[in-house]
């Protein structure tokens, strides 16, 4: 082999090695990039899922209570009615049928909701639970309603899913009086609803138990009146286990 030929061959070998090194370097860089991308994606995915899980936790925000101190009700959303906060209670001055005021987490599941309720005239007033998809309208929400109804003097338990299904109507031991406070306590476990109404002196006035078909399993809480204005105070929601 002559010198020029050797030089050419050496140069080709050097080129080949350099090309191979460059290719290997590119593969290594690509692998590093994919790894970096994967790690970033996995970490961000995990953090986001954890954040969502915390935000969607059925325990988040519980126990909850609102005594309407300082006349504040910013966290409540009204669907119809004419609502105001007055002396530590929230008042619906309208007799609009199906007026609602809703608050709390849409992810609450099994809980106990308690409130003091008074009707302003004849009609219905009470509390709603596991509320979702609320709109202005008589039964324009999905949820469970427990209330005092003067028409037939009963404690009524029903469910709405943009319609109305009544599950219990238990007569009271004495007439419902307007502008008189009654303590309602509703316990929701799965599709079972236990409701009890006491007078202000804690004597029992009536109770009802119902199992709701295809019940809503989670949702916010709310206040609702029908054909009667109403007043509510001392609203309290507790996790079921904690309230046992």
């Amino acid at each position: 082999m002559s010198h020029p030929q050797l030089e050419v061959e050496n140069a080709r070998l050097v080129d080949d090695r350099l090309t191979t090194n460059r290719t290997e370097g590119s593969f290594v860089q690509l692998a590093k990039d994919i790894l970096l991308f994967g790690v970033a994606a996995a970490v961000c995915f995990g953090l986001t899922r954890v954040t969502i899980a915390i935000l969607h936790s059925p325990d988040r925000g519980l126990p909850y209570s609102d005594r309407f101190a300082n006349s504040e009700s910013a966290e409540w959303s009204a669907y119809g009615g004419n609502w105001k906060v007055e002396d530590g209670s929230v008042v619906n001055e309208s007799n609009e049928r199906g007026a609602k005021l809703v608050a709390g987490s849409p992810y609450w599941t099994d809980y106990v909701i308690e409130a003091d309720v008074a009707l302003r005239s004849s009609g219905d007033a009470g509390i709603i639970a596991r509320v979702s998809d609320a709109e202005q309208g008589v039964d324009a929400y999905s949820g469970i309603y427990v209330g005092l109804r003067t028409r037939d003097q009963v404690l009524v338990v029903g469910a709405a899913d943009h319609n109305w299904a009544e599950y219990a109507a238990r007569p009271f031991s004495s007439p419902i009086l307007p502008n008189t406070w009654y303590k309602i306590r509703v316990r929701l476990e799965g599709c079972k609803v236990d409701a009890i109404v006491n007078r202000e002196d804690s004597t029992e006035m009536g109770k009802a138990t119902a199992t709701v078909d295809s019940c809503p399993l989670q949702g916010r809480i709310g206040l609702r009146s029908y054909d009667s204005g109403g007043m509510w105070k001392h609203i309290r929601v507790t996790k079921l286990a904690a309230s046992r």
Partner: protein
Amino acid sequence: MISSRSLLILFAGAISGFAVAVFPQVAPGTHAPQITFIPRTSGTSLSEGMHSGADKAAREAGFRLYWNAPTHEDDVDRQISLMRSALANNTKGLVLGPTNGPALTAALNKFIARHIPVVIVQTETPVPSGRYITSITPDQDAVAKLAALHVFDVLGSGGGQVAVLGLDRTAPETLLRSRYFLQYVRSHPEVQMVAQQKSTSLVQEAEQNAGEVLDSFPHLKALFAVSATATAGAIQAIRRRGLNHAVTLVGCDDDLFLRRDIVEGSLDSLVVTDNQRVGLLAAGALLDGIGGHDLPQPFHVEPRLLTREGFQVQP
């Protein structure tokens, strides 16, 4: 030191991880096509009957029924707002119980212009029926005839004074019922029509109006109330005056708590239509229209008379 290239890859990875994590929360669900039903108001026995019928028809056809209504029967603004929402939500068809026909014609014409079928219930259609709009309503002549024949039967050969309550210009069916009733009364000279009283959709006002008629005509023998509200108001006015056994009250529409009033004896009888059937027929016609068929001609549903004798149905 991290290079800008690495930072870019980290950022892209983080965005991808975030997107994959939140996608199930924000992904649009697959919804069945929607039809809309907006009665005059909801949460009453009349509207719930129609609701269950329409819901059944919609579900069987693979449609979702959006149901909502004003909380007051005279809230025309709310009804227009619900109609606008339905259009914005790409509803495939509308069943409407108009609160005030003339006020709704512009909103109805928007549906017709977009070839979205509309079926009117509860009252006559406020715009002429055609390819995209029809009505399914009680036969108002038959409603008046049933009431009139029952009143003639109760009064007997001696006859007496009668009055009509509840004429409401925003509810054309009340005017039709009154007009037909008057025609039947004219064929019975022993029966005298002494008043045709206007009213509104508010029970308190209906009670006041009924009271005025009762006070003005102390020898009144029978009242025909041409709407559920007028019937409920008349019941209260009669009860307050202790006239339960002196005045025969025949009401209209299976609404409010009027069935209970028949059982309790504060209402003699009630002319009703099968509301569930109306809902079923209305949604059925609408679905046919959505399927490309012509809407049927305006259709009348036959009423029946509920009496206190165990809700015996009379022909």
